[in-house]
């Protein structure tokens, strides 16, 4: 065991934990003020829900001994046997518990990402039930496929350093299912204005996300080594580049550079570099970031034409950004950066690009279908949406009996 690695991963776990409140603010600033608390609540409560679920059964399903390359078994139910000795399969230098709690933070933020899709209209009770099911039935399997010892995508050689498929594509495509099943907000695309109520809050959220994301990506090295340093650098540079790219693109397309664009571009860059962070060099990271800024902006721009109401653009930013990142990993990955990784297409290995495509498609299909079915079942049984009247009055007062501001 190594104290430095343990220190590093524990601090990184704290950083990743902070991303969930950061995301809450990022999203919260974009909704209307009558739904601010409901939006914050959906994120904050997931800390509680998924934290406990992870300790009880989630961790075991994701990282327990493999069952058919698809899922972990129940050996670690209730964290039985998850002690202070390293779990050698994943890291030789940090306590098993450190690995487990670090992973817990990933399991928390992933479903939180989805909440942006159905913001301002979802019933809180249905939301809770959905999330328990989704983490258990969708997140845990996909995490196992990609990261778990024996997982089929890992076996195939798919590269996903810190969660491009497991976290972003997974959540992003579930968000699409959500938007389709839950339906549009009242007045969407029809006179009503959905002007963000508090953009400084969104900027603060983006700042905290950026900060916490260093824990997300660099921490995924599971050690305080050159790889962590390289992942840290890639993360920062891609994010810088994506911020600029998004703002530049909208400046050209729409005539003005916006603050929300800068914050969104940063998040798009963070998303896209996530799978690649530990496999690519700094200049590749900048290119990935530029791609993310442009592609995600265009994806967001196109949304209204596609007709669904993904309130806070989870699909445009996380799904599309995640797909771009996962594929870009298959382009830019280099063994010179990480010998334990693989070369990508641009380094003479087109096979890796193919593998990345398989991982992307598998995640897209599985997560979309499973999420869609879950939403449909809940819609039919308990109902997903609040009443039209409650939606007009706002979820804060109707679902939580509170008011965000009394300034």
């Amino acid at each position, binding site marked *: 065991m190594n104290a430095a690695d343990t220190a590093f991963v524990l601090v990184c776990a704290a950083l990743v934990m902070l991303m969930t409140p950061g995301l809450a603010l990022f999203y919260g600033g974009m909704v209307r003020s009558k739904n601010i608390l409901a939006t914050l609540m959906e994120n904050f409560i997931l800390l509680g829900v998924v934290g406990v679920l992870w300790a009880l059964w989630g961790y075991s399903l994701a990282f327990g001994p493999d069952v058919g390359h698809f899922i972990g078994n129940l050996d670690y139910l209730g964290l039985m046997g998850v002690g202070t000795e390293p779990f050698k399969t994943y890291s030789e230098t940090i306590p098993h518990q450190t690995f487990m709690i670090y992973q817990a933070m990933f399991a928390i933020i992933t479903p939180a990402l989805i909440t942006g899709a159905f913001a301002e209209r979802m019933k809180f009770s249905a939301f809770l039930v959905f999330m328990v099911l989704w983490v258990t039935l969708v997140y845990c399997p996909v995490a196992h496929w990609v990261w778990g010892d024996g997982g089929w995508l890992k076996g195939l050689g798919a590269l996903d350093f810190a969660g491009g498929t497991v976290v972003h594509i997974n959540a992003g495509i579930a968000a699409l299912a959500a938007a389709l099943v839950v339906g549009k907000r009242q007045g969407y695309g029809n*006179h*009503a204005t959905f002007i963000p109520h508090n953009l400084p809050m969104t900027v603060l959220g983006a700042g905290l996300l950026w900060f916490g994301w260093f824990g997300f990506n660099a921490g995924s090295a599971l050690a305080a080594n050159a790889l962590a340093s390289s992942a840290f650098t890639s993360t920062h540079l891609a994010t810088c580049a994506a911020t600029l790219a998004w703002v530049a693109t909208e400046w050209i397309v729409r005539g003005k550079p916006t603050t929300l664009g800068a914050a969104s571009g940063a998040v798009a860059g963070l998303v896209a570099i996530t799978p690649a962070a530990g496999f690519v060099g700094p200049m590749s990271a900048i290119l990935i970031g530029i791609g993310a800024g442009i592609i995600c902006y265009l994806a967001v721009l196109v949304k209204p034409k596609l007709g669904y109401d993904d309130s806070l653009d989870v699909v445009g930013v996380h799904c599309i950004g995640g797909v771009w990142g996962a594929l870009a990993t298959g382009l830019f990955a280099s063994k010179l950066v990480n010998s334990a990784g693989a070369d990508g297409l641009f380094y003479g290995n087109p096979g890796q690009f193919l593998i990345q495509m398989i991982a992307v498609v598998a995640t897209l299909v599985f997560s979309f279908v499973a999420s869609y079915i879950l939403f449909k079942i809940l819609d039919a049984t308990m109902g997903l949406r609040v009443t039209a009247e409650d939606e*007009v009055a706002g979820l804060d*007062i109707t679902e939580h*009996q*509170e*008011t965000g501001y009394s300034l």
Partner: protein
Amino acid sequence: MKKIEAIIQPFKLEPVKEALHAISVEGMTVTEVKGFGRQKGIREVYRGMQYQVDFLPKVKIEIVAADDKVQAIVDTIVDKARTGRIGDGKIFVYPVGEVVRIRTGEKGDAAL
């Protein structure tokens, strides 16, 4: 000239405005207000303490118009702002003595 003052539900502002625009009302002033009426208030709970909030968010629209347009305006507002539920609000009509357009100094109907 008359001032028409309507207290309506906030989410009805947009349709009312559109409809008024359609009958060529070209100016109005809007204020966020809180209303107390037959509609019962909201109960809020903070750490188990309950507070009855009697004042509900409403929007006040003020339009000064020539006498002959008043009826049409009132009718339009009633038409567009009505949900049929308690809390829809009220319209008040007041006499106006004089109007001045600051930019030009014009007075009377010409200033509207």
